[in-house]
């Protein structure tokens, strides 16, 4: 007998395979990282050789757009879709608690995101390691893959909050898009505006603390602070040197997974079907 939580997880995982989500995300990530590492080198005038830190830097700034979008797309209709088709009501009459359903779905879809990140970026890392003689490829990519996974999981959890808070699929899609736009673009622009517009408005520490309010910024912060600072520019270059410990940043990222899940479970409990 499979415990119900894993039955749900298994179904979500199989759905991810069936819908070609896993394969397409993996491919996107692999092509992206390979392309960037080669053409990134060409752009800086060195054919053949490439710099790991510039690769990770450009990968981070692209992944920070893509991963949240992919995670939101994968999960925004997770609950509202089942609500519209009537299966959510049916599932709740089964010996399956709200939390079990939520966690089961998270495990299944989280596994898709995790696996796609590992396979996509990992395969690129392996290829680069074989074709070039640069050191530290695996440690740099390891950190990148770990944080990319956390970023994906965080936006999966955020997608669940959206999916449970609304009663229509189209509304969930709209809100997901707004959330993505806010965290990925608006937040940073506002921060930059504050830095430029107000003199001595923010100390370096305050800046980092504000950036912890955004999982996408946390992702960039962790990755870029591990690199040579020459390849980093923008608001981040200020924040990178703040000396906030990586552990602290990781804890914040974990909180960005757990808190939305917790909120989702509260909304789920109060939801009337």
């Amino acid at each position, binding site marked *: 007998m499979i415990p*119900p939580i894993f039955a749900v997880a298994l179904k979500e995982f199989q759905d991810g395979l069936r819908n070609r989500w896993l394969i397409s995300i993996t491919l996107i990530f692999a092509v992206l990282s390979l392309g960037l590492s080669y053409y990134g080198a060409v752009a800086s005038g060195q054919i053949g050789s490439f710099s790991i830190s510039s690769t990770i830097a450009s990968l981070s700034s692209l992944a920070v757009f893509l991963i949240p979008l992919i995670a939101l797309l994968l999960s925004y209709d997770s609950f509202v879709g089942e609500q519209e088709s009537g299966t959510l*009501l049916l599932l709740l009459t089964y*010996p399956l608690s709200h939390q079990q359903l939520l966690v089961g779905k998270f495990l299944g879809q989280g596994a898709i995101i995790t696996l796609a990140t590992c396979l996509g970026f990992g395969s690129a890392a392996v290829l680069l390691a074989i074709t070039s003689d640069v050191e530290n490829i695996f440690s740099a990519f390891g950190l990148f893959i770990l944080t990319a996974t956390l970023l994906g999981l965080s936006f999966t959890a955020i997608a669940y909050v959206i999916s449970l808070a609304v009663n229509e699929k189209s509304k969930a899609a709209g809100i997901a898009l707004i959330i993505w736009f806010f965290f990925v673009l608006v937040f940073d622009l506002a921060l930059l505006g504050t830095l430029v517009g107000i003199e001595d408005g923010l100390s370096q520490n305050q800046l980092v603390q504000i950036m912890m309010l955004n999982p996408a910024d946390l992702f960039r912060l962790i990755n870029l602070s591990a690199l040579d600072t020459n390849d980093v520019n923008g608001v981040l270059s200020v924040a990178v040197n703040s000396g906030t410990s990586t552990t602290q940043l990781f804890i914040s990222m974990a909180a960005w997974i757990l808190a939305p899940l917790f909120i989702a479970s509260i909304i789920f409990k109060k939801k009337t079907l």
Partner: protein
Amino acid sequence: MSDLVVQLTNTSKAYNKVDVLNDINLNLNSSEVLGLFGHNGAGKTTMMKLILGIIKPTSGEVNVFGHNPISKNAWLNRKQIGYLPENVSFYDHLTGLEVLTYFSRLKSAPKSQVFELLEQVGLSHALKRQVKTYSKGMRQRLGLAQAFLGQPKLLLLDEPTVGLDPIATKEFYTSVDNLKTSGASIILCSHVLPGVEQHIDRAMILSGGKMKALGSLEQLRAQAALPITIHAHGLNGSVYNDPALNIYLVNQSNNQNKLEVEEQQKLTVLRQLLSYDHITNVHVESPSLEKLYQHYLSDSQITSSKGEYS
């Protein structure tokens, strides 16, 4: 602990202060089949949700297998409850077999039962096909198979025969009878009235969230005191000219010889009819469930409009 499977005591449910169910009392025994009838929005689905423990009553009590269905104690009993929702479209991209396997895992039902049930509802030929290719009737059968998973002691079926062809409907009622014999209690909610009669022990008629009637069909008939219809054939004008019979004629202008009599006069009238030598056939019809239903609902409309004027 009582033997009652479902017990509703003065149960009411309101959404945003609008009463959806008002003061419902019901005791359902084991191996009893209850028909639940009412218009759309009469509160049938709400009543099922209360029994399933999906929603809480605003006031009153709900007990299923002796527990409040929302409480943790009722958790294990959920394996013994089967539910067929009114509008459910299963995971379209999965095959019938995959859908039922998923639900069987959640209910910890053995995998072998999945094939048995698919066979029972006549879907064995389509088990490897995606649900999106299924017809409405096939989807309904899949839903039924889902409800029969495990060894249900209580079944709540919302419009089970919608979309089923006559043969499938007959097979469905056979399964209902079998489950009843094996000790399961069933609440059957339906708009399709003909055909249900022989399979239900009691009927409950709901209107506007209120219980209009509850009892066996005989009780409801007696209570409603609806006339019995008698068709006599081959009599031509004799009935019209017989003073003992023509008072019962439904339509005096044509010679359709359709009489409506009270239960008490039934035999007297029949004897009188049979005394004519040229009678070729006689057809006696007790008020159908449909008529009872209309009676109780029109009755409630009169009382409610009276209420508005007073």
